[in-house]
């Protein structure tokens, strides 16, 4: 969220509001192709127009009203819903596009991170190497924070807003945090419909943000130590869970600085 480290460094930074959140792209390469950033934001706006549950004419809204049949939806929409179904299985039902209502789907818990993964591909295909894309506190890192050798991500302390609970260091990494912060949306346990207990936040890191975000949401919904134990069995992803008593549980490979 806050990126206040100033000093002499290359690159450009752009902020745009998409999907109801500020998307910040911080590029640390020299000679940045601005057209690549335009393509990236155009892609994110297209994702918003296609997947938003707040826009009446999005494909998701039309699917939910029964005006559009799944087989007539865009292939990318079908792919996303299939991936969400896989994630539901991987998370024992704790990540569920029907968590809010059994009659409607809301894949936004996966779509935000996934769209940032594809945004990262767009920038990399354009030759960019060192950049971060931050979507409202969940981010994909690429390369390094030139002139530094890596990116440093502070994990918001869940109780003390002026503190950082930990710092993660990485080069090519996705970082997603789910927690009981005072945000409009609240994660509920889809099996009980209630807020999870005994847990303050879960941070998941790994190669892809869509998956990391879904895992963080699912683990948080599990609550308490169940969340930490579940994250310890993930492949390719590591996690840090902060319990209600402020105990911090990290998996062995969690890249804490």
């Amino acid at each position, binding site marked *: *969220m806050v*990126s206040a*480290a100033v000093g002499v460094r290359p690159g450009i930074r752009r902020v745009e509001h998409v999907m109801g959140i*500020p998307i910040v792209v*911080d590029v640390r390469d020299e000679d940045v192709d601005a057209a690549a950033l335009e393509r990236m934001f155009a892609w994110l706006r297209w994702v918003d127009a296609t997947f938003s549950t707040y826009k009446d004419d999005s494909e998701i809204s039309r699917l939910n009203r029964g005006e559009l049949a799944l087989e007539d939806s865009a292939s990318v929409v079908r792919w996303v819903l299939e991936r969400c179904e896989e994630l539901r299985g991987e998370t024992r039902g704790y990540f569920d596009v029907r968590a809010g209502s059994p009659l409607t789907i809301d894949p936004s818990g996966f779509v935000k991170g996934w769209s940032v993964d594809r945004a990262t591909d767009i920038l990399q295909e354009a030759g960019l190497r060192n950049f971060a894309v931050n979507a409202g*506190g969940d981010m994909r890192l690429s390369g390094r924070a030139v002139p530094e050798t890596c990116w440093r991500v502070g994990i918001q*302390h869940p109780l003390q807003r002026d503190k*950082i609970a930990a710092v993660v260091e990485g080069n090519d990494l996705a970082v997603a945090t789910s927690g009981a912060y005072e945000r409009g949306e609240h994660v509920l346990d889809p099996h009980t419909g209630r807020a999870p207990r005994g847990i303050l936040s879960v941070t998941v890191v790994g190669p892809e943000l869509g998956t990391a975000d879904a895992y963080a949401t699912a683990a948080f919904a599990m609550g308490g130590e169940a969340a930490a134990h579940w994250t310890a069995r993930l492949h390719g992803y590591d996690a840090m869970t902060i319990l209600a008593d402020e105990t*911090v549980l990290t998996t062995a490979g969690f890249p804490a600085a």
Partner: protein
Amino acid sequence: MKKAITTLFGAAVIALPTGNAAAAQKKVLTKKFTGSTVDTGRYGLLRVAIVVRKTIVGKKVTRRITSITVPVYPNDTDRSAFISQNAIPVLIREALQAQRARIDLVSGATYTSDAFATSLQAAIVAEKKW
């Protein structure tokens, strides 16, 4: 399967004082930069301004945010006034602290802080051209 278990430390980020070697030729400039006005949605408008100190020692230029103010903040209802009074001073401290310990980004942000961050980013963009 193995898990490392640690207890949460109050301030995980230790600010390392930057060693300011006394140099022969040193020039210090300060300038104020104003961020964009951001609509926080239900709470109203917010705008951040920063004061940056630029230190030039020979060819080495370092810039540091010395203060952050919020000239426009949500105050049209009791609820947003409450948020402004409590959240904004915290966000300012957080941003200054993040700078000290070189935090490039923060994971796990909140609604009001998103607007704060957006305006702050815009101020930083302006500052970087200075």
